[in-house]
């Protein structure tokens, strides 16, 4: 009997330090690094109930619960992770981690470069999904987790789950790949390039060393966020939410007149206050570079051959950023490899953002799938 779904309550982030150098995909080496993480639930005696929750573009290690004395500080996937929730913390030990290059406490461009004593800025190396996964594996070692019951994530987080299955097949029992794609389309990369161009051309960018100038390229970051945000929502949903509604009628000016304009500006403003532009640049690059089939001549089936875990792949009908057709490519490659895979295509009007929402069928599928992983 599970209790009514609830919150994991007050949580506290933790920091893990790693002194062994980490060799990156680019060939660069990080001499040492730190990762911020949070955990929810209890690791069982067999250490067999751990689930790694990977974040997407703009989220962090703060997956669930809230911080003491900070109202409205719920984690980004609080509807998914908690007691009685699909990732039931009464059964599972969930781990959230801020990826390398992030801006929520893990080593990233705003951290101090030990070689110079100044923030890394643009000298911080480009990191890839594979680098993140390698760093996460170090965190698993640190936590005494030899094998995750599951690694899961949506969007870019789903790509990390896929990468885990390929890179560490013996360390993962299940991969939950949600609202993801086996690589980015030209259109996806194009959107990312607009976002990067906005940041790189901001006069406050200062070649990535803006920390020293006491400024931040917030104008670029805002535009980057606007572009991204548009791709997270379906046309249908945007139409339903905002339509052509005007705030006060036409003013024949360039001030925000349509509701959608002020919504985008608001989202962009909020985002630029807490997110670091150098991190944004790097995460979009990691997205663009992700392509496990690159080393197999574009053959995704062969790229996924090393994976041995079970898979749950989920897509959302109105997601045009990573459409169901892209998820089906992953499913096909897994079927070709005769892997255990289930695939659910969730009817949802929201677009890509649906992976963060709690459509009943979506959550029921995740819940039902995970219940079986502990049997």
């Amino acid at each position, binding site marked *: 009997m599970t209790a009514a779904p609830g919150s994991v309550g007050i949580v506290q982030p933790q920091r893990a330090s790693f002194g062994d150098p980490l060799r990156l995909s680019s060939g660069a080496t990080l001499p040492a690094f730190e990762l911020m993480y949070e955990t929810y639930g209890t690791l069982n005696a067999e250490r067999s109930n751990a689930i790694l929750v990977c974040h997407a573009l703009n989220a962090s290690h703060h997956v669930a619960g809230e911080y003491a004395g900070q109202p409205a500080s719920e984690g980004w996937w609080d509807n998914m992770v908690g007691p009685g929730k699909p990732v039931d913390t009464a059964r599972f030990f969930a781990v959230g981690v801020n990826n390398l290059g992030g801006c929520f406490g893990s080593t990233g461009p705003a951290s101090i470069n030990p070689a110079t004593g100044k923030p890394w800025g643009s000298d911080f190396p480009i990191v890839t999904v594979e680098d993140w996964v390698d760093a996460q594996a170090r965190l698993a070692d640190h936590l005494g987790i030899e094998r995750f019951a599951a690694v899961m994530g949506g969007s870019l987080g789903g790509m990390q789950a896929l990468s885990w299955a390929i890179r560490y097949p013996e360390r993962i029992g299940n991969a939950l790949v949600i609202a993801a794609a086996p690589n980015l389309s030209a259109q996806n990369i194009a959107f990312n390039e607009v976002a990067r161009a906005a940041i790189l051309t901001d006069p406050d960018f200062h070649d990535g060393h803006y920390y020293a100038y006491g400024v931040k390229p917030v104008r670029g970051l805002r535009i980057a966020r606007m572009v991204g945000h548009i791709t997270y929502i379906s046309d249908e949903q945007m139409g339903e939410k905002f339509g052509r509604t005007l705030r006060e009628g036409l003013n024949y000016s360039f001030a925000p007149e349509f509701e959608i304009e002020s919504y985008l500006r608001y989202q962009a403003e909020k985002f630029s206050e807490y997110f670091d532009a150098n991190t944004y640049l790097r995460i979009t690059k990691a997205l663009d570079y992700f392509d496990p089939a690159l080393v197999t001549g574009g053959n995704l089936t062969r790229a996924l051959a090393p994976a041995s875990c079970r898979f*749950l792949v989920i897509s959302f009908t109105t997601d045009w950023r990573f459409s169901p057709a892209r998820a*089906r490519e992953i*499913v*096909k490659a897994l*079927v*070709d490899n*005769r892997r*255990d*895979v*289930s*695939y*659910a*295509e969730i*009817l949802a009007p929201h677009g890509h953002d649906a992976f963060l929402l709690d459509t009943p*069928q979506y959550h*029921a*599928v995740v819940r*039902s*799938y995970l*219940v*079986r992983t502990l*049997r």
Partner: protein
Amino acid sequence: MTLSTRPDFSTIAGWIAPKARVLDLGCGDGSLFAYLRESQGVTGYGIEIDDAGVLASIGNGVNVIQSNLEAGLAGFDDQSFDSVILSQTLQAMRHTELIVLEMLRVGREAIVTFPNFGYWAHRVQVLSGRMPVSRDLPYQWYDTPNVHLCTVADFDAFCAAHSFRVLERVVLHDSKRVSVLANLFGSLAIYRFQRGGEQ
């Protein structure tokens, strides 16, 4: 999660080799696949379009792929399964011919089961001027999912017209095999067949 069994399950299981690679089209809650996994140790996938079926299959630990059969089996390579099963779904398919051809493309053998429209009680109802409603066809004409009902004789002719080689044919009523006048006294038909000209 509870599993149901249907009268055609044991006949189908008898036609599946141990450890066979199986694709179950229209797998519903995964009951048949789970049955075959228990009895024959099969591996493979169920395909289901309905949300409730997908959820139940996952709950039953069956690999299920949510997909519309009417669009064919594009996600599956040629001859990648030992058996492809369509259990009591044929009659509800719009693109009947397409799906049967797809079954024989991805599988070495096809197993199809369907309610026999030629069953005597159905004929009596048609003769009396009404569309049949029975245990096997429990729908009124205006709300039935069944769009392509056929008789045993019809399916025989379909197989002949496509040069399919029928390997086995069993017609049941009340879970018992009917061997005399099967098209009249049998209510559930089960076929195993492959493409003609093959071993």
